[in-house]
């Protein structure tokens, strides 16, 4: 499963990386990411997940080939 992170999340993870573990939902993916880097827990709690360019909720069912973007709060403008 391909993950892409942005902005402040790049201080905690590589910009692009792969999760090989079997994950069915965003919630389980989130758990894995916190295991990988526990210091990212608070930051991740403020982020939203997008799958194929649409925001999804924690119960969203992931497919193995989904492209997942983790979206921190906006700071544009």
């Amino acid at each position, binding site marked *: 499963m391909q993950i892409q992170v942005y902005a402040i999340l790049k201080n905690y993870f590589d910009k692009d990386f792969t999760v090989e573990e079997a994950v069915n939902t965003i919630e389980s993916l989130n758990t894995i990411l916190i295991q990988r880097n526990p210091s990212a827990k608070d930051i991740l709690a403020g982020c939203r997940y997008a799958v194929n360019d649409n925001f999804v909720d924690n119960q969203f069912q992931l497919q193995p080939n989904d492209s997942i973007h983790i979206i921190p709060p*906006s700071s544009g403008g």
Partner: protein
Amino acid sequence: MTASTSYHPAAGDNANHLSATAIDIPALLASAHHPKAGAIVLFSGETRDNSHGREVSYLEYEAQETMANKMIADILKQANEKWQLNIAIAVHRTGKVAVSETAVVVITASAHRSEAYAANRFIIDKIKHEAPIWKCEYFTDGSKEWGGNCNCRQITGDASKHIYEFEK
């Protein structure tokens, strides 16, 4: 860039609302005249030389480009439906933006000025809170910081619910 950044209600929106290079404001403004529009309002968000008491060297913007582009297009569409605009344009920079350079521009045109002002404010507030675009501040002391995040979630309890300035 000129023609492709405006929202033309009849034509839909195939514009590119992100620009990796300097935004040509005179060209955008020149494209915003409309014989039915008595009022044009332009907002330019520019890099300040200071932030939270520290001296800023420049900003760098990153975006999830496909989502940001789609969301800005949708915000312009909402504004147009709400205020029947003649013109609605928005372009946000990515990459490095020096002090006094434009990071984001919004142009609205309508028959009368109340609508042009209100729509302009609506569009910039929505872009700032919703569009997946992030600012990294580079300070003159060599440090950098991802900053100025929308933190509405701490108040609303929902990352998709924001408190917009235009509603205050």
